[in-house]
């Protein structure tokens, strides 16, 4: 049965990674009896293997909880989980669209971090009530007064009503739930109006087809109803609606103000696009809901199947992933070195890593990825402006009037003692300081930095030089003309398109040398010598050689035990299978990321 609107609360939790969001969600589920003890595996909401392993939330999850308040009222609390990483701020905005309020969860020892700041602003902009919660107050290093000050000074929300909890021990969690009910407004909506339901998330299930997570804004969505997708105009019969408790629990209907799932026998992967409005075929709404901003990928890389016959499987897998990953963009790319694959657009490096890992794990694909690159803008000599997502497609120099690279505004929040190394890092990355503010114990800085510099190893280094305390958020700002050149890598005198990259001329010499040296390390010695060169146009700027191996023979092999010797050969062969044949040279997959690692390897000191 649907709850009265006044007894529904839709909320998200905004938190930095490791600040205890999943643990808090688990306590909520436990307190509301969503799962029995046997079913409570740690961190229920992080359902993807990858999320469990990395301890981060990638996709929005949701859970609907019945809460019996002390005043005797029964509430339906709908928690829409949000990802905490900067690469996934888009996912956060989607989750927020389904809520009236958000808990801002801050670690009592670590204090406020940049992504939480950015996400809090998004929530406030979206008109949500933001309730501050200080977690991990049981830690010896907890300093709630300091964190309160930070929340007030950095984010600017009042902390008089701040909840103090330990999600781990459960301390204060029940009080928090009462606070939540009191502070977060009930949803509004007209249950007898024509149906308007917003698709927050969709994913493909091999048994039932597309499953969509929706927020019903107006009207009622009944099981069995004939629905219409606003964007495609296609109609489907609803097979099942329900809520997650967190187990899927079918219901008769979902009413305005509620969040739940819809299964409507949609077999085509893009049948229920995220951000679309669902309405009734018989009684359609007048206009769609605002939906979501189309997000632009900022980082591009080529993904190629290691075995060319997996191309079609890769296409299908990307298609399925892109269903609930609006930021993932892909189109066919053909490379002389790697054959057919896809040029994929990502929000950032973590997004790219996660997509690649999901493709490999969930779809059993063996992939080769090229080094990620940012999008460049060029003006050709005949005055045309073009975006370049692939260094290989940069026109020859005589056709280019200007190359522009993307700049971002980076917001960094760091405890005062690390300010020196952080500034050094930013300057080393061609960053220019725009603003600096001392807030409580932390320093908030804003830098103008070329995005290409940040994409590669900025985040890791920022983390390591601040012992994990610095946090970082960024936004694309603009394209800026620069002295940028295309750096080609030649293997045995042949250009390998998948290894080309666009770099600043000042660093081209160094990058070229680093890359050929790195390739020299990762390309195994083989039957013949392999010549490696880095070139700008026809000008060779660096070279290295992979010496030929002398032999590859088993010294001993008697008729006796053939199986073990055979296994050795099979192992060698399997190793080769993971390599790409380029002319007579075998190139291992990691070589195509040599561009990335080179900068990591040499500067990490």
């Amino acid at each position, binding site marked *: 049965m649907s709850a009265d609107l006044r007894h529904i609360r839709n909320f998200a939790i905004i938190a930095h990674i490791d600040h205890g969001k999943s643990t808090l969600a688990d306590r909520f589920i436990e307190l509301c009896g969503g799962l029995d003890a046997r079913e409570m595996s740690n961190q229920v909401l992080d359902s993807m293997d990858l999320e469990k392993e990395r301890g981060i939330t990638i996709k929005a999850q949701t859970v609907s909880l019945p809460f019996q308040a002390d005043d005797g009222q029964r509430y339906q609390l709908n928690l829409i989980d949000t990802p905490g990483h900067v690469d996934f701020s888009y996912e956060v905005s989607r989750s927020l669209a389904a809520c009236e309020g958000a808990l801002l969860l801050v670690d009592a020892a670590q204090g406020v971090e940049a992504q939480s700041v950015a996400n809090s602003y998004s929530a406030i902009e979206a008109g949500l009530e933001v309730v501050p919660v200080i977690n991990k107050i049981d830690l010896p290093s907890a300093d709630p007064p300091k964190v309160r000050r930070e929340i007030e000074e950095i984010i600017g929300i009042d902390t008089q009503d701040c909840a103090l909890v330990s999600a781990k021990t459960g301390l204060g969690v029940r009080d928090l739930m009462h606070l939540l009910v009191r502070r977060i407004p009930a949803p509004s909506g007209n249950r007898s109006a024509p149906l308007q339901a917003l698709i927050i998330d969709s994913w493909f299930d091999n048994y039932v087809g597309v499953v969509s997570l929706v927020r019903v804004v107006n009207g009622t969505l009944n099981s069995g109803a004939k629905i219409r997708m606003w964007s495609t105009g296609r109609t489907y019969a609803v097979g099942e609606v329900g809520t997650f408790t967190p187990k899927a629990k079918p219901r008769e209907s979902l009413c305005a103000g509620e969040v739940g799932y819809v299964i409507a026998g949609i077999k085509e992967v893009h049948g229920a696009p995220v951000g679309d409005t669902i309405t009734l075929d018989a009684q359609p709404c007048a206009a769609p809901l605002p939906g979501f901003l189309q997000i632009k990928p900022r980082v591009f890389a080529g993904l190629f199947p290691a075995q060319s016959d997996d191309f079609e499987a890769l296409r299908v897998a990307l298609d399925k992933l892109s269903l609930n990953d609006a930021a993932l963009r892909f189109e066919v790319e053909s490379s002389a070195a790697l054959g057919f694959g896809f040029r994929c657009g990502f929000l950032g490096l973590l997004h790219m890593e996660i997509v690649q890992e999901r493709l490999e794990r969930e779809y059993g694909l063996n992939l080769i990825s090229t080094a990620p690159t940012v999008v460049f803008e060029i003006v050709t000599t005949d005055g045309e402006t073009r975006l370049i997502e692939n260094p290989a497609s940069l026109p020859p120099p005589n056709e280019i009037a200007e190359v522009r690279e993307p700049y971002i505004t980076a917001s960094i929040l760091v405890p005062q003692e690390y300010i020196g190394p952080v500034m050094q890092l930013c300057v080393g990355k061609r960053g220019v300081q725009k603003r600096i503010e001392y807030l409580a114990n932390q320093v908030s800085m804003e830098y103008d930095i070329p995005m290409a510099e940040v994409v590669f190893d900025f985040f890791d280094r920022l983390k390591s030089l601040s012992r994990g305390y610095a946090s970082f958020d960024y936004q694309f700002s603009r394209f800026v003309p620069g002295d940028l050149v295309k750096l080609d890598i030649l293997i045995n005198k042949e250009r390998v398109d998948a290894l080309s990259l666009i770099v600043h001329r000042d660093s081209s010499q160094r990058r070229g040398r680093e890359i050929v040296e790195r390739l020299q390390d990762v390309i195994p010695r083989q039957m013949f010598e392999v010549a490696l060169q880095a070139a700008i146009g026809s000008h060779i700027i660096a070279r290295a050689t992979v010496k030929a191996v002398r032999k590859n023979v088993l010294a001993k092999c008697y008729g006796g*035990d053939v199986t073990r010797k055979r296994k050795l050969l099979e192992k060698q062969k399997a190793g080769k299978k993971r390599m790409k044949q380029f002319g007579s040279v075998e190139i291992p997959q990691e070589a195509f990321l040599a561009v990335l690692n080179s900068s990591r390897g040499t500067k990490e000191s």
Partner: protein
Amino acid sequence: MSTVSQLPPLALYVHLPWCLRKCPYCDFNSHELRGELPEEAYVTALLADLDGSLPAACSRPLAAIFIGGGTPSLFSAAAVTRLLDGVRARLALVHDVEITLEANPGAVEAERFRGYRAAGVNRLSIGVQSFAPRQLQALGRIHSSDEARRAVTLARQSFDRVNLDLMYCLPGQSPDSAVADVDAALASGATHLSFYHLTIEPNTVFHARPPVLPDGDAAHAIEEAVHARVAAAGFRRYEVSAWARAGEECRHNLNYWRFGDYLGIGAGAHAKLTTAAGIVRESRTRAPADYLRRAAEGAIAERRVVSTADTAFEFMMNALRLTGGFPEKLFSERTGLPLSAGEPALSTAIEKGLLERRHGEIRPTALGARFLNDLVALFLP
């Protein structure tokens, strides 16, 4: 499944699994001897095992017998006599049968060698490994360089055909010290050299605690130097690690490489037999105690029919180790398959310059011989 028109030649491998001490590089089925050597019981077990194998011989005479180990020379001449008499009582031997026994140089006596010769052993294979004291120590050998020399001298008194096992690319070895080893081996009067590049095998002490070995280029320099020296002394390399004076090739090992059949008796012994059901591979249980208990019923640990695809691969894995390769017709004679079963790998290998096919012979090129693993891997099913 394939059928051959004529059964291949048959050899017999006998495994005597005990050693005084396990060497750190050794991955063979050898066991340190604790207490009395049960040679009486073991020979009885071997003969019982052989009884069970007789049907597979299909009345073929044995072309060669190889008594390997372990350290077979731990067995007395009397035990070896009883073993070989027992074999002769069960199977015919070709008139010029080659019977090899492996010996280690520690504590050998002229008397014992004479006894082996009298038992019918006509080829002795001595596990010298090196003549350099420092290397012998590094290899965990229990004999000294003097003992090594003395063992070969004694062997030569009883045997016309003597093989020495030598290893090169040893920890800290220079080309000069490797050549000195070769010179000592040549001077000893050996007629055959099994000349191994030391390889770190899994499940060995060296694998767990790897010694520092000469790297790729240094190893290559050593190999070039020693190969040149052995060749100059009139030895011919006929297999990856086997060198012989003319006519002194090891017939037993050649039978392996030419994909002949062999019975295998003893703990952990392997057999390969052509049967009506196809080519069958067998292995015996590895633990000596277990073998002693179960030999009468065969002590088979594994028995499998080699698939058609695997047959072609296994043939190549063996035959391409021979520097002279093999006559084309040998492939179908041994496998029962047309040569086309080796395609497309054959063509690929020729195209890559790893293999040559001329006058009805198929052999690895110089490049193919150096990259034999890459060549053979092409034939993996």
